[in-house]
């Protein structure tokens, strides 16, 4: 059996082949205008949004819930300012990313952690989004 997630993995692989061919870049997970890249997980009543933000410190990140969108703002600052680069592939500056959530979430039960450059935001389904069993009369 081929599951949906296997197909997805293969599709991602195909996309990276095209990306490599057309851009000849090494940092395939930071595409401009789409920074940071995110994954959205949904299981049961919980939604988790993960973003790859290497080198971004927690104090620069702000998270906002706007309707069904999670807005991630932050900044990445370069440690080196005075020396000339021999090789420069990493990008710096401020970023804003809006992520559409798969379900309506409870505004008061949002938690976020930042570890090893991965931001994890955990959100819970709002009461209105939870399934309701309807009794047959």
């Amino acid at each position, binding site marked *: 059996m081929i599951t949906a997630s296997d197909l997805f*993995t293969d599709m991602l692989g195909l996309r990276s082949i095209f990306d490599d061919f057309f851009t000849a870049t*090494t940092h395939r*997970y930071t595409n401009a205008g789409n920074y940071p*890249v995110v994954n959205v997980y949904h299981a049961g009543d919980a939604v988790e949004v993960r973003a*790859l933000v*290497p080198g971004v410190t927690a104090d620069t990140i702000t998270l906002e819930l706007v309707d069904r969108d999670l807005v991630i703002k932050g900044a990445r600052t370069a440690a080196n300012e005075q020396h000339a680069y*021999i090789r420069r*592939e*990493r990008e710096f500056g401020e970023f804003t990313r809006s992520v559409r959530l798969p379900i309506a979430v409870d505004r008061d039960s949002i938690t976020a952690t930042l570890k090893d*450059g991965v931001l994890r935001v955990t959100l819970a389904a709002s009461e209105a989004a939870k399934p309701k069993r309807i009794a047959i009369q």
Partner: protein
Amino acid sequence: MNSTNTHVAEQNRYEREIVPAVDIYENETGFVVTVDMPAVSKENVAVTLHENTLDIRGTVTADEKERESLRYGEYALYNYHRTFTVGDDIDPNGVSAKIENGVLTLTLAKREEVKPKKIEIAVH
């Protein structure tokens, strides 16, 4: 369920590698190499310098269960690997590494004899 397919997919998954983005600059004492390696913790980094080859590896430990609940995805994490050739002016014993917030910083010290030396001009 045919477990063979899943097994093959899994093999491919772990054999793939990400070439991480790298910045390199030179300062007075040596070279500084910074590598983006999100999702790699301190114990999963391996840096070796052998015969002028600097080999940088970062291992990502992925959870199979997480893939099942993925609804929308823009990235897939694989192990990181990148190799550089360095010159003879690097001191093999002068390499230090630290990882912080998913960014690996390597400091490669130059050999004493190639460091710029200030020559005092004797005043007579």
